[in-house]
């Protein structure tokens, strides 16, 4: 009962926050779509950005709530193109390809890792099943809104359909005993056979022209592969080794699907080939503290960001949460800068590049009038180890505030910081441990 009341109060508060204009004054604004604005003003209303610019040029509405964020930095909410938050699952061990399995049906929204992602300034994520299959399932693009149900985290496209992609993988993770492939060539062959099946299915459906007697039995998996072939779904392809990356490009070429290269450890070795492919929306990198840990990552290097940037590839980053910590997502871009990537490119990589890879560049990824009011308010330079995320806003609603003890617990860690929401004994967590 009490929880219902509290939840109700929260939702009302969220609606209020969206109805009243909010003005952020005094911060350096990093629009990403243009150069930083010192001492800028940003106004959001009804979940959207309605104005921004140097302080004198922006009229703050009379009824706006003003937030003095002097000295801080406001970025567009960060976009994580590859996360496993919510203990997401896809297909099972019964086969190597599961285009019918939806991340939507598996995510635990109360997973504390979603709160931790908010604490890292991440507002949008592509939550994906793992890489133990050639195709482990449908991914889910989510906004990190506060809720207890997945429905509230969904992103809908202009036509009302859900925004999600497809997770595929090659290399060693998906190599297992039958019915899984035992080699790289077999991996590619299984994928090609399945796509040919999908083409036949698609053609049969087209030929039936709506005649129920002619339609083949509905096949959820082949339908999904058909979506990929039609260009409606982007494939997020886990791939590490240079030859595996080229295999992805070859498959994308044959079946003309749109692809985001995920991990791309050896991307530095085939940067020009990646840049030349018309099917690649971008490369999403994970940069690790030391090479190795598995054979395919033995040549992973921080310089890949710089090399892909110079080759002209849209280059972004991902946490691969829990492989790296969502709370330190900005670190990924900073390490790329350490190895030669431009600051602008790295900040673009944390925001706009991810938005483009998810096909959401019209809504998120930059501070521009009309875009979603997704913000990360930082204590300083986004690429400094000493910088903290102070606040995170999604669709004009504050979802993380470092000055709140419960939010701070997620940001710093401590007793209960990894427990599912609602499972914490709040008296203990806040009384004795804060």
């Amino acid at each position, binding site marked *: 009962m009490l929880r219902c009341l509290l939840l109700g109060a929260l939702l009302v508060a969220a609606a209020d926050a969206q109805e009243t204009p909010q003005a952020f004054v005094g911060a350096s604004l990093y629009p990403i779509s243009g150069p930083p604005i010192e001492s800028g003003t940003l106004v959001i209303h009804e979940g959207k950005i309605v104005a921004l610019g140097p302080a004198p040029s922006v009229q703050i509405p009379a009824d706006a709530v003003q937030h003095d964020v002097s000295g801080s930095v406001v970025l567009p909410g960060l976009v994580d193109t590859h996360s496993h938050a919510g203990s997401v699952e896809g297909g099972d061990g019964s086969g190597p390809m599961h285009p019918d399995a939806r991340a939507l049906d598996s995510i635990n929204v109360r997973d504390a890792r979603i709160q931790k992602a908010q604490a890292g300034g991440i507002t949008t994520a592509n939550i994906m099943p793992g890489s133990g299959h050639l195709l482990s399932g449908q991914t889910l693009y989510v906004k990190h809104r506060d809720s207890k149900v997945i429905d509230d985290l969904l992103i809908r496209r202009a036509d009302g359909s859900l925004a999600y992609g497809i997770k595929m993988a090659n290399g060693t993770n998906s190599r297992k005993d039958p019915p899984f492939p035992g080699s790289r060539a077999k991996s590619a062959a299984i994928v090609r056979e399945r796509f040919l099946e999908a083409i036949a299915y698609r053609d049969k459906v087209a030929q039936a022209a709506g005649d129920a007697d002619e339609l083949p039995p509905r096949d959820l998996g082949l339908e999904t592969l058909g979506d990929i072939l039609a260009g409606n779904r982007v494939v997020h392809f886990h791939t590490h080794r240079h030859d595996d990356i080229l295999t992805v490009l070859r498959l994308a070429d044959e079946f003309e699907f749109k692809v985001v290269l995920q991990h791309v450890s050896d991307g530095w070795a085939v940067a020009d080939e990646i840049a030349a492919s018309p099917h690649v929306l971008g490369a999403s990198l994970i940069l690790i503290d*030391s090479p190795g840990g598995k054979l395919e990552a033995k040549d992973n290097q921080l310089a890949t960001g710089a090399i892909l940037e110079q080759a002209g590839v849209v280059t972004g980053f991902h946490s691969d949460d829990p492989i790296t910590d969502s709370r330190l997502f900005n670190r990924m871009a900073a390490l790329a800068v350490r190895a030669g990537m431009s600051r602008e490119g790295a900040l673009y990589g944390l925001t706009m590049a991810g938005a483009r890879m998810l096909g959401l560049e019209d809504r998120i990824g930059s501070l521009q009038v009309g875009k979603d009011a997704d913000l990360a308010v930082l204590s300083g330079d986004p690429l400094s180890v000493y910088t903290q995320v102070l606040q995170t806003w999604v669709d004009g609603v504050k979802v993380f505030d470092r000055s709140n003890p419960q939010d701070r617990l997620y940001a710093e860690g401590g007793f209960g910081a990894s427990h599912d929401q609602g499972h914490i004994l709040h008296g203990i967590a806040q009384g004795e441990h804060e």
Partner: protein
Amino acid sequence: MTRRQRLAALVVGITSSGSAFGQIAVTGATVHTAAGEPLTNAVVVIEDGKISQVGLAGEIEIPDGFRTMTAAVVTPGLIDARSTIGLSGYLNQEHDQDQIESSAPMQPELRAIDAYNPREALVEWVRGYGVTTVHTGHAPLSLVSGQTAVMKTHGLSVEEAVVKPFAMIAATVGEGARERGDKAPGTRAKMAAMLRAELIKTREYLDRRSAEDEDKRPDRDLRLEALGEVMEGNVPLLVTAQRTQDILTVLRIREEFDIPVVLDGVAEAYDVLDQIRDAGVSVIVHPTMMRARGETENLSFETAARLRDAGIPIALQGGYESYVPKSRLVLFEAGVAAAHGLGFDDALRSVTINAARVLGVDDRIGSIEVGKDGDIALYDGDPFEYSTHCVAVIIDGEVVSEELR
């Protein structure tokens, strides 16, 4: 010069009157000595591999023929206070994983020096970022997994690299020690019972070994001999414990047997700070960015700062990783700790002089002071900042890395 150095000198035609090995003067816009306030525009002179002079640039006369190097920031070579690199390799394949022997739950006789691979790529990797010394050895993956050693990250053999061949014995109370199926220990209570029984056996062994009548002395037992070093106070038991109950179990056993203990990990230490301080033990805190899951789910970025605030001696570590990344860099771990309450100075001390003290090697390394080993790291800015580079690394007066990292 070592034999190898002499050989190398012949090959490249360097003569002792030129830039000889071990003869270097390093100038830093800022020199963090870890032995007092930072010095501005200062020089560190290394002669025959040892630090011979430290002082302000105007006050130091650099001897003729010395190689000179400069950097924005100069620190002592960093120390990773707990790692498994050299035993665990970066490829993560069976042939390069020697950090755990799973045939028995207690094997204190396993020596790190018999497994350490000084040519392992991870050793070169961490060195490139300024880590000149690692405390490495058997992993926290069984009740008593084996010995640890202190190694310089330079040298082509264990004999060349070793600083302390038998530094500690690695033990674990918690998930890492839990055996599966019908193997013991399968529970925490059993872990403590087995550890206590082994220490009692060790004590009896030492008693019998000192018997006046030679015939009554026992046969040599490598296992009990090794633990005997702990019992006699010569070598600490390095116990990994994350949960509060595990930390207290370790302190209870320490008190019962009056043995030297160094705590490792301590994810939940913030709830038992008084007990840890009162026991007078040192702590090697888990990697700051360690994954929060399982028994480490409650870890905090601020634990190092909380321990420091409580007056407990701490060091930081790269730790053990089973997967990607196969090793963490203690430089990065210290940076995140610095940003989460520990602050720059204490973070740096926890990977230099304080780490050296915890490992008992502070007479040789850990600070820039006259007489200490010429182990120096050079950076082009704040060493903890993400976008700063390590520009050179010197070990025993030899420039071992000049690659921008």
